[in-house]
């Protein structure tokens, strides 16, 4: 239908009419939002003014990718971020706040000071690990939606080991605590992994259900046998020998960034090595691309699935362990899901399921999260705006096709297919 329309209107006319349609829809939306024609019109004009820098930035990215200065794997998430920020402008304006001030505060709060950078890294640390967990399972063709539950079990495992084995020297206690957390996650993921590998039960359903079991099991433990004395549902604090070293406290004692970050980066490197430099990793990726062909080629598919799921769970469990050992120092009852596991999905998607991409995605999400407090303080913008921006980043990354259409030059068809090949391979 569109092709015929383009033929009739000619390339210029077609583009003009598409632009016209977008503007018309936007105006209509504004009028509906503001509930009046005049106020809707001023709102639309105002918002376009505020959007201008983002639109230009987006245009630069598109041009850079088209001209070959920028890889499309980098350009796509960048554009998704830009689009999300544009939607954020509309939302912030609708809340009658100043978008520039809000974004400025977001930036200042996350990267504008050492404290901000520290907090960005603190939030990014568990996200790197859960992002890796999701990405790893995805490379084997599975959606590990249970990362949230595995994270909770990792927290519980580490907290338990942390306060139970008091008196051990740090050199034993620290790795033992981390291991208990990792095992907690791995154990939790092994159930849906086993069911998928041996019985073909869909891992999405199972791992979601395992999330709830983790939530209520830990709730039961932390309000029962593992509860610290007092009225509050928390476990006792872990021993000092199980705490991850906060390495920037010599600058300022409040900097919470800790060795968990090193653990996370190390894990990213190991995941890369495992997936791309070993036979096992090759098999896992082959199963992810086509399990039937893999079986035909002599790969043990159920072993690969089981292994991928357990490693994925171990990564998510490590994430929980690191969070307890570095930040919380105890298990605090999670009344409802904290969201590191779920955000991990967004991070993995953003990072194209590649360890390096996951690290970058986690840093971005960490920065957004860390900056949100300052945004409230300075610009009076509610925290939910950040959630909206995060959601739209995911939305636009998922809606890759829209962005690819924008990036791809219609005249040079070969480039488009090359980019497609790259993504697929």
């Amino acid at each position: 239908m569109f092709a015929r329309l383009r033929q009739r209107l000619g390339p210029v006319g077609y583009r003009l009419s598409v632009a016209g349609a977008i503007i018309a829809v936007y105006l209509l939306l504004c009028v509906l939002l503001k509930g009046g024609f005049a106020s809707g019109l001023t709102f639309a004009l105002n918002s376009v003014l505020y959007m201008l820098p983002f639109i230009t930035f987006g245009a630069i990215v598109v041009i850079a990718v088209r001209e070959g200065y920028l890889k499309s794997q980098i350009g796509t998430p960048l554009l998704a971020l830009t689009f999300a920020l544009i939607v954020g402008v509309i939302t912030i304006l609708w809340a009658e706040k100043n978008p520039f001030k809000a974004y400025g505060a977001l930036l200042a709060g996350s990267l504008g000071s050492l404290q901000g950078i520290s907090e960005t890294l603190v939030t990014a640390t568990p996200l790197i690990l859960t992002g890796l967990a999701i990405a790893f399972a995805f490379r084997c063709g599975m959606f590990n939606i249970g990362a949230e539950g595995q994270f909770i079990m990792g927290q519980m495992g580490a907290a338990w080991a942390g306060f139970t084995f008091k008196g051990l020297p740090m050199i034993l206690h620290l790795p033992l605590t981390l291991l208990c957390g990792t095992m907690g996650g791995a154990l939790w993921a092994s159930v849906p992994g086993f069911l998928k590998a041996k019985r073909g039960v869909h891992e999405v359903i199972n791992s979601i259900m395992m999330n709830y079991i983790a939530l209520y099991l830990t709730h039961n433990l932390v309000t029962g046998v593992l509860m610290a004395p007092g009225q509050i549902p928390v476990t006792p604090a872990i021993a000092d020998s199980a705490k991850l070293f906060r390495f920037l406290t010599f600058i300022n004692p409040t900097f919470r960034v800790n060795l968990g970050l090193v653990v996370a980066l190390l894990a990213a490197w190991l995941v890369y090595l495992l997936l791309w430099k070993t036979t096992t990793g090759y098999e896992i990726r082959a199963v992810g691309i086509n399990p039937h062909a893999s079986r035909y080629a002599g790969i043990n598919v159920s072993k690969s699935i089981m292994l991928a799921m357990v490693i994925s769970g171990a990564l998510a469990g490590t994430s929980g362990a690191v969070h307890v050992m570095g930040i919380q120092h105890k298990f605090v009852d999670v009344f409802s899901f904290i969201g590191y596991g779920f955000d991990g999905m967004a991070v993995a998607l953003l990072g194209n399921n590649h360890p390096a991409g996951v690290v970058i995605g986690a840093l971005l999400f960490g920065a957004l999260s860390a900056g949100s407090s300052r945004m409230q303080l300075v610009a009076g913008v509610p925290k939910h705006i950040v959630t909206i921006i995060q959601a739209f980043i995911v939305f636009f990354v998922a809606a890759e096709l829209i962005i690819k259409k924008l990036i791809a030059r219609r005249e040079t068809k070969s480039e488009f297919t090359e980019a497609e090949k790259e993504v697929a391979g």
Partner: protein
Amino acid sequence: MSNDKKTLSPILIIAVLVIAVAAILYFVFLRGDNANTTSGETLKFAMVTDVGGLGDQSFNDSAYEGLKKAEAELGAEIQVIESKAMDQYETNLRSLADQGFDMIWGVGFLMTDAVKNVAEQYPDIHFGLIDAAFTDADGNPLVLPNTMNVLFKEHEGSFLVGVIAALTTKTNVVGFVGGMQFPLIEKFEAGFIAGVRAINPDIKVLSAYTGKFDDPAKGKELALAQFGQNADVIFHASGACGIGVIEAAKEKGLWAIGVDSDQNHLAPENVLTSMMKSVDVGVFTGCKAIYDDAFVPGITTLGLAEAGVGYAPTTSNNVNAEILAKVDELAAKISAGEIVVPEIPAEASAFVLE
């Protein structure tokens, strides 16, 4: 290819210019704002919400009411930060402390550790904590000289709504729906059971817990089950699950009892009364103490006598004066210390009014 690049460069230059202008504009905006925040001799109060955030129709909103009252009556500047995740409590409290607020509130017991850590680091700033006391590493009570811990006698307020329930029920079966089961929520259950038993020990009290605070469907399910077992009045202490409990009462044409704030507006014909937990009173009392230069560190417990808990003002819409007179009589006795309301459900099931 090279031709294309030439035609594109003006676009790039314009883009860079636009961004530069935007950056300048933004710095102008931000600078102007920073100048504003450092001025003035008025008192500055702030609070950090837990992950529930504003709009929870429960204690975060109630605490904010207290803060707004301080703004109106004490002429203070106020500020709220909503926490996006649990690990942000500490950071949020600290960024407020860095801004030089006079008193900073942490709302909810989940913030206990965060308030403790930050209060220790900023001895010159006053802090307030709702719903929790401090303990040291061995579990002994701890008082920080710059922090006020506000606790509520939820069991006393729940006792009163228990009395109202007992005097209203026709089937002699009443229900309790709690959120997650831990000592704080059990205080509501204990008070309610004791209140019912104070009127008639033969009335059966059904108890159930949803296991969460944010699931109206689960609340409705449990409430319908209790109505199915002949209950005709249900008291909930389950956060947003209670919306479902009230909905179930509306559907069945029976009674629900609200919690924390006056929930009568949710279903005027079916919300019998609400157990008010006035977090706002706690917050305002603390702010007022700073204003009057009469800050008292440590635990402040607000019960019936201090108007920290009670039944909702709209109760008289659905409850007759005779019953209210009886309730007020018992309330006076509790305030005077003549009746001691149990805090543990096991003790409450053996409660007898002398």
